[in-house]
């Protein structure tokens, strides 16, 4: 056995492509990670600070979640890597027995931080907790993630807003490659923890391609498509996504960061992505917004005060099996548990959606699934988002 294959055999990640859609670029895979297998395409709920807001790990497991996210920067600040290491890693600390993926900083959080200074060394922040200056270098970010013990770690990337143009984008792209190499070198646990690269290049096709060419030469177990989902035009967004999947190796997972709206999930699966994450479903839940196949329902709205149906009569989640819109509407005035009910429902919605997507790919009917999905989501054909129609057309899907 060649040395390369022997090393791969020791890799803590195996991707088995179970089915490939013959029409689009979609795949259904089994992603074997240290804690358990993950069925893709997969939506990963976000539990930034070592918890999914208001939900116990048992409830999360009960919903069928196989992998969720934690945040390196936040946990690195509070409670800190040393404590988490003492607690047997983030898995031990939060008592989550399945997989964890840690992102370094968080795209939008990063953009919100004031007095942020990026040098070749790393990113300098002022901590919002105690005002101290912190330098997050590639080495430090990997060191923290090694202590967290996540199954998938993300490189530290030089992130720029997708609405920025000019030389800064190119600088960030090249730096991200250099930082990727430093992250790879700094990983103390390559046999237990997977390090994913993050493709940058903004909305510039040439830069993206250059980044793809370089990063795919590194021996990493997976790739993320970064720097998108930050307010850019959807037309540019999908073109960068599809360009990226065109040039990413087939046999490695593709993680599209920060994508979570239902339409985006379905379309980007068709464009060849396997993994997704987003705070949207869980965050919007806390505002009383319940996700449903035909959009969303603002439970706190007066119109639901007397609505005795569950959020979605077809939904099998604990919330829909027991409670009505009217009760949840009333409960929002009395107790925080109302938020938890909606959070549970929204996670269930996302996971069920991805499960249905996967099933349809495996059964060779993904194109039909897409058509049915779009019909349900939008009242009429002329309300289909233009970018989605174009993106799907690019992978041979025509919508009536």
């Amino acid at each position: 056995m060649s040395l390369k294959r022997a090393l791969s055999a020791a890799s803590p990640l195996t991707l088995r492509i179970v089915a490939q859609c013959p029409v689009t670029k979609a795949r259904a895979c089994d992603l074997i990670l240290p804690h358990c297998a993950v069925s893709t395409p997969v939506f990963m709920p976000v539990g930034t600070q070592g918890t999914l807001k208001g939900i116990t790990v048992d409830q999360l497991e009960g919903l069928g979640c196989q992998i969720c996210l934690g945040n390196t920067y936040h946990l690195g600040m509070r409670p800190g890597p040393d404590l988490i290491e003492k607690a047997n890693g983030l898995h031990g600390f939060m008592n989550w027995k399945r997989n964890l993926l840690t992102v370094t900083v968080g795209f939008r959080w990063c953009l919100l931080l004031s007095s942020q200074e990026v040098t070749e060394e790393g990113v300098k922040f002022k901590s919002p907790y105690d005002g101290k200056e912190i330098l997050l270098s590639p080495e430090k970010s990997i060191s923290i993630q090694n202590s967290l013990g996540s199954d998938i770690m993300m490189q530290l990337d030089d992130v720029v807003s997708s609405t920025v143009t000019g030389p800064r984008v190119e600088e960030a792209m090249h730096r991200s490659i250099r930082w990727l190499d430093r992250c790879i070198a700094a990983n103390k646990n390559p046999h237990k923890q997977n390090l994913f690269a993050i493709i940058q290049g903004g909305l510039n096709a040439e830069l993206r391609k250059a980044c793809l060419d370089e990063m795919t030469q590194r021996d990493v177990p997976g790739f993320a498509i970064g720097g998108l989902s930050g307010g850019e035009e959807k037309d540019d967004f999908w073109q960068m996504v599809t360009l990226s999947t065109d040039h990413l190796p087939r046999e490695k997972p593709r993680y599209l960061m920060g994508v979570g709206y239902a339409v985006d999930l379905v379309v980007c699966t068709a464009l060849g992505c396997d993994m997704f994450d987003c705070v949207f479903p869980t965050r919007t839940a806390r505002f009383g917004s319940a996700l449903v196949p035909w959009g969303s329902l603002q439970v706190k709205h007066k119109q639901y005060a007397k609505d005795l149906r569950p959020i979605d009569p077809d939904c099998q989640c604990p919330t829909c099996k027991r409670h009505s819109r009217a009760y949840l509407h009333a409960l929002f005035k009395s107790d925080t548990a109302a938020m938890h009910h909606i959070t549970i429902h929204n996670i269930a919605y996302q996971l069920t959606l991805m499960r249905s997507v996967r099933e349809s790919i495996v059964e060779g009917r993904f194109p039909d699934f897409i058509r049915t999905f779009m019909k349900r989501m939008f009242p009429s054909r002329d309300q289909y988002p233009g970018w989605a129609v174009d993106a799907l057309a690019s992978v041979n899907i025509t919508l009536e």
Partner: protein
Amino acid sequence: MKLELSRVVQGRSRLGVLKRLGRAGQHSLEVPGCLLYTHLGTVPHLTQDTLHTQSNLPSVTQVTLSNIAEHQEVLEEFKDGFRKFSGLHDTVLYCSLHDPATPCPTGYTTNKTVSVWGSGGRIELTVAKFMTLQRAVQPDWYQSMADGETWQSNTSRKRVRKSVDRTLAHLDECLLVHQKSQELEGVEVFGAVEGGDILEERVRSARETAKRPVAGFCLDGLQTGSMDQALRTQLITAVTKELPEDKPRLLQGVGRPDEVLECVDAGVDLFESFFPFQVTERGCALCFSFDVSPDPERAVLELDGEKEMAGETQQNGDLNLDDQTQMTSFEINLKDKRYQGDFRPLVEGCGCYCCKNHQRAYLHHLLVTNELLAGVLLMIHNTAHYHGFFSALREALANDKLDLLKRRVLRERDGQT
């Protein structure tokens, strides 16, 4: 309902079972016991999944008109009662007037009305409106409308007398309407005993209320913060002497373990379980011991544990009667830095979901980062611990160990080693 007493200790504290609860009479509740405190049918912070990580929950769920009143229209249109509306499948529903965890503004009570405060502000209730609400809620049992606004320390004798008179008048009116209401067939009514801190008024209220056809008695206006325990004990002892032995006595607004024990000793059967909720809201975990087992080895271990506890818990000093949000010495404050690296469960040996799955360090982190899960986990633990206390209380009564339990709990309160 039917109260079956198995023991009466020293003519005061009672042990037994409240049977034939619920429309089909299929539920029972052990006494002394507590009801399940909820906000609109939901135990604070908990969904059914997290709530039912605990077995042996009280069979009676308490809801309050202060949460429900603003939803009258919805319930009237729904027609099938609050229990069904909230998805509470198999529980006995008790409806009280006020939420014991939220003190009401005073000065809004009149001869004919009392007020509750919902999320949208004050809602004024006449007996007619009160009873309309009960018909919409369709509880299994409810507290009659009452004027209990006597808990402020400078309430005049005249005002106290008025509260007794008004409450009796409300009760009589409620009962009249009750008897005529088809929706309330089989529903039980508890009369409220008032009287502030004036012994003669308390006795008068008890005697008069006992003459009415009520299923049991709510002892009102005695809540924590309104008077010291010595006076409360005196008043309750006098009141229970006037009440029939075979009807249950529910004490409102008292939940601290030491006060519970004293009140059981004075003849109280039922309590509201809002205390674990208050502890949760201040980021604390109940940890007081209620173990009175005779095992000598354990006694030594416990002594050491006690010393540790005494160091851990805050000295209470003089009770600040007016501040119910103040931490007691029955709990630990998990926000404290000392728990940052403490990998023990909240309470060693506690079988609740929180203690079986998580550690103090994690709870500390959740509180410091203001995470919602803190409330969920703490509520689970505090609920379990509190119900464990009531279990131990019943066991102590059964085995003549009430004094031992009292001493143990008072030691915790006073932080003695």
